[in-house]
């Protein structure tokens, strides 16, 4: 499956399209990021995320802007931008769709899901659909192995996937239907996500649940069997569980091990927000 790991290189990368969206406001935000750190250069990674939120990729103009704000050369910034896989030289679609093909997700079905999506979308790894909606990429482990096979859309979790739920997901994205992460918010655009990574919150932290079924598997079992840490004074909250327990925890034992369904049922919205 080494072909999973190759990147299409037959398409040339536009050096500059001459229509950079970097403005004085962008530069001001870059300076704002730099001011958060004791040494300004620490801001370079978030600044490159900001460039992607404005430009849809890392452009030559974006690199020069970072260099100008931080007093670096363009080469120094390029050296950093080319090291990290989240920085893209080619334009990324509205939705970056990732499929984990590291070992555990791969054997649990990630390889088949990735193959199915390549066919369904008629793109290769790290390529974007003709309509500019979806960029497909295989991912390395995204720290959600207890929900394998895992997909990410604009870095939101999609758990317990199947080839069928995966194709439905990308169809919904292409058709503009609202898509919610089972452990996150309603999916925003890739550029909007990049802005959050640059350190500009979008005010949506309260969407979604505390965790999915797997995150709560051990806790739920401990509650059922009245197990707790010695002294009964663990994290300190178990005694109040019956009055403040969250809906996803109250849903009871994992209903079945049918993949691709149950975690979708956990629906988060602001109605549970207190205070």
């Amino acid at each position, binding site marked *: 499956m080494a072909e999973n790991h190759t990147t299409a290189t037959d398409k040339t990368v536009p050096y500059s399209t001459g229509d950079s969206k970097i403005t004085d406001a962008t530069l001001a935000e870059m300076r704002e990021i730099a001011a958060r750190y004791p040494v300004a250069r620490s801001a370079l990674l978030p600044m490159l995320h900001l460039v992607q939120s404005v430009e849809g990729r890392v452009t030559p103009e974006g690199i020069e802007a970072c260099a100008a704000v931080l007093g670096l050369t363009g080469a120094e910034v390029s050296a950093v931008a080319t090291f990290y896989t989240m920085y893209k030289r080619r334009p990324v679609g509205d939705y970056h769709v990732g499929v984990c093909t590291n070992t555990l997700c791969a054997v649990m079905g990630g390889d088949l899901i990735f193959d199915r999506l390549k066919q369904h979308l008629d793109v290769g790894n790290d390529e974007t659909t003709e309509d500019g909606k979806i960029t497909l990429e295989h991912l390395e482990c995204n720290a959600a*192995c207890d929900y394998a*096979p895992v997909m990410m859309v604009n870095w939101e979790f999609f758990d317990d996937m199947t080839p069928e739920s995966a194709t439905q997901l990308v169809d919904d994205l292409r058709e503009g239907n609202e898509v919610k992460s089972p452990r996150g918010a309603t999916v925003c655009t890739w550029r909007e996500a990049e802005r959050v*990574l640059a350190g500009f919150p979008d005010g949506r*932290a309260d969407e979604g649940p505390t965790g999915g079924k797997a*995150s*709560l598997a051990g806790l739920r079992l401990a509650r059922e069997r009245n197990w707790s840490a010695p002294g009964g004074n*663990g994290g300190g909250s178990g005694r109040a569980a019956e009055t403040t327990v969250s809906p996803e925890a109250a849903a009871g034992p994992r209903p079945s091990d049918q993949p691709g369904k149950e975690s979708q049922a956990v629906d988060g919205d602001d109605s549970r927000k207190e205070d």
Partner: protein
Amino acid sequence: MLTPVLSDNWDQINAWQLSSYQRTGGYDALRTALRMEPADVVAAVKDSGLRGRGGAGFPTGMKWSFIPQDNPKPKYLVVNADESEPGTCKDIPLMMASPHTLVEGVVIASYAIRASVAFIYVRGEVLHVIRRLQQAVQEAKDAGYIGQNILGSGYDLDVVVHAGAGAYICGEETALLDSLEGRRGQPRLRPPFPAVAGLYGCPTVINNVESIASVPVILKNGADWFSSMGTEKSKGMTLYSLSGHVTRPGQYEAPLGITLRELLDLAGGVREGHQLKFWTPGGSSTPLLTSEHLDVPLDYEGVGSVGSMLGTKALQIFDDSVCVVRAVLRWTEFYKHESCGKCTPCREGTWWLVQILERLEKGQGSEADLAELLDLCENITGRSFCALADGATAPIASSIAHFKDEYLAHFENGGCPFDPMASTVFATAGASA
């Protein structure tokens, strides 16, 4: 059997919000800590026996005590939230459900080492976790837990949530520091250790998320309470993450020293109709174990005694439907991709390992190639700045030790004898539903 402490508030409504966290005693430990001398906070964590939960198991309090307080430079705390070791999935759910547990730990730890700024370096690929961290830090600032003169103690601290950009190597602490300084994430030669010359050349403590999140409850309930759990040299409770071919995968918080047999029993056992074939105790960089090792205590010493490492307690369960050669090849491709390229044995070695394994998986090889692979592994291990390449060789050497016959079967078969469909979750969806 299970001891939910860090995960104890994960079923509370809006557990990620300050109001919810405070309702369950949140930030009480910070008040306790701020009434103590910083050195006494360090001593409490030392006495608890807490060891680093990021893989290496170094005593946390001792790490803090290495910070030279007579050094006039600023001190920094850096939280390693770059969770990306294959199989590891404990810090992400912790920060998603209860980011304030981490933030409270950050303030206490920073006070203990007298840091002026703390950074939470979180991998960039977890958008919603980053949102929750950003909000938690802001809430803590608004409540006076972060900022100038915290709770009237005279102590000042700033906390920055910093998103990475996709590089496994940045989970290595010195590569993380280079990345946080706005550079390519490449490891540094040690010594000097970060405690002496870390971020910006200043004294720096780098701790894993779970280590720092364990600090508030130690201050709250005491070092003796913490060390009453666990085994002789591995104290306290910890998050075990079960994934793969197990009936109820997920997070199981238990005292150190529980066995995989016990955990599998709690999680409903291996996938119905199948047998356990191999597993990782703590991520893909820890040598594979088999069903022979079901009763090994999962603490630092127990797992070490059978030639592996506790690592991140990422228990990836693979049943008899999985081809070990395919699994190992995929991990090796991962290490090749993630090698930062600084050290030749790792950069070139992982490349060669993939070449050979690809050939073996296709059945094009002989027993002599296995000897070649092991020779290559020996020449790679221990010859780089960091442990990435050592991790790359772990699954190869251990799989050949345990499953040599399966490699040979590929040669005899002229290819992989396994059906890749059989290992998928959808292969059994009909049977278990």
